[in-house]
């Protein structure tokens, strides 16, 4: 598996650290239902068999956090974007 880093180009998997599902966001701790929301964000996962949006850290490269769209059935990388760009739609072109 190689990940197309926006700065470094296609780099080997061994340079990256996986951080999991990118759709889990830290909830507002002042919300009325904060305990339930935290439970959701910390523990519950869609865990899809197919396209999955996830966070990777290029620790042995440019040290960017990346938002990677990857197929969990085939390991095919569908798209990569910088996590700070805020784009959830890491499209195949990006």
């Amino acid at each position, binding site marked *: *598996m190689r990940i197309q880093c926006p700065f470094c180009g296609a780099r*080997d*998997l*061994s340079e990256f650290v*996986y951080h*999991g*599902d990118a759709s889990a966001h830290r909830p507002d701790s002042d919300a009325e239902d904060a305990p*339930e929301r935290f*439970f959701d964000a*910390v*523990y*519950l*996962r*869609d*865990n*899809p*068999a197919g396209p*999955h949006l*996830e966070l990777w850290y290029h620790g042995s490269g440019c040290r960017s956090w990346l938002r990677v769209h*990857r197929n*969990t*059935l*085939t*390991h095919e990388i569908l798209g990569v974007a910088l996590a700070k760009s805020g784009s959830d739609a890491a499209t195949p072109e990006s």
Partner: protein
Amino acid sequence: MRQALGGHRGWGPAWRDAAPQSQYDIIVIGGGGHGLATAHYLAKVHGICKVAVVEKGWIGSGNAGRNTTIIRSNYLLPGNNPFYEWSMKLWEGLEQDLNYNTMVSQRGVLNLYHSDTQRDAYVRRGNGMRMHGVDAELLDAAGVRRMLPFLDFENARFPIQGGLLQRRGGTARHDAVVWGYARAASDRGVDIIQNCEVTGFIREGERVAGVQTTRGPIRAGKIGLAVAGSTSRLANMAGLRLPIESHVLQAFVSEAIKPFIPGVVTFGAGHFYLSQSDKGGLVFGGDLDGYNSYAQRGNLPTVEDVCEGGMALIPAIGRVRLLRSWGGVMDMSMDGSPIIDRTPLQGLYLNAGWCYGGFKATPASGWCFAHLLARDEPHEVARAYRLDRFARGCLIDEKGMGAQPNLH
């Protein structure tokens, strides 16, 4: 004996390949070790024989056929230890119970330690085990040297100081476990339905009343999921989100060599475990690849890491050739411990989250899941494996890693 002389042409099938009926008391989804063990104990212990085991491929074709066959009960935490020890006790009587040679071989499991702090942790674990009545023995370097003189004791970074040994641990033959449970369950009237993939659930209000399959609808009073690896996919069909991620774990086998390793040995400074099969191949593995995957195959960095662990521990295996490697999809729960519980949906029961410790748990998992399905209450040794423990904060985090499934 007669078969040996007759060229092994006279063997008949060991279990019935059943066609689905329209109604059962209980359907168990998943024809792996856990599903078949559940069916066996439902029939044998609880007298419920109108049971179907529904399997999308052939039985034992998932993780039951992809593990490294190690059995042990060297767990520390009170929620885990009695369960795995019950499993070990069932292993010890399994061949008599099933009248099937499952090749249970209690050749010992040795976890090595490489530092003072690691020794202290193993002392604590060993004491925890002994307080639960499980055998544990702490060996110093000389004790390990007597067992395994060829280890790299003087490794510059990770010298071997000793190990925690469970002599009752060992290995079993994974396929024979599946086949033994299948034959025993089938003999008691359980229908084993292969090539029958579940495509959805039949709902009656809040109740789950059956499954839609590729071989037509099947209805039942209760439905148990025992599909580790694919739990989220099936739960999703029922509208449930679970504290589970699917990850790939790779395993390896070398060419066959003469008897070399007497038991199971694990490297404490990395993650590497090794045993030798009865055919002579060295069977070993290490860490997860670390990313979500349903692919049943991994990547090369993990292959390299596992082999480096092997070389750091036993330099002598360096010239043994690797024969095969493969991957299995693990149900990684958020605390590294399994779930055997009801679900919020009436009639649907969950057996999941086995991480990469599912094989050794096979008998107790079946025993406790059968108990839950038959009596609607958890078995005493599986009380801690509740689905709601994550929301309540009652995690069973054996490794102390937190909600990072790829680290358990």
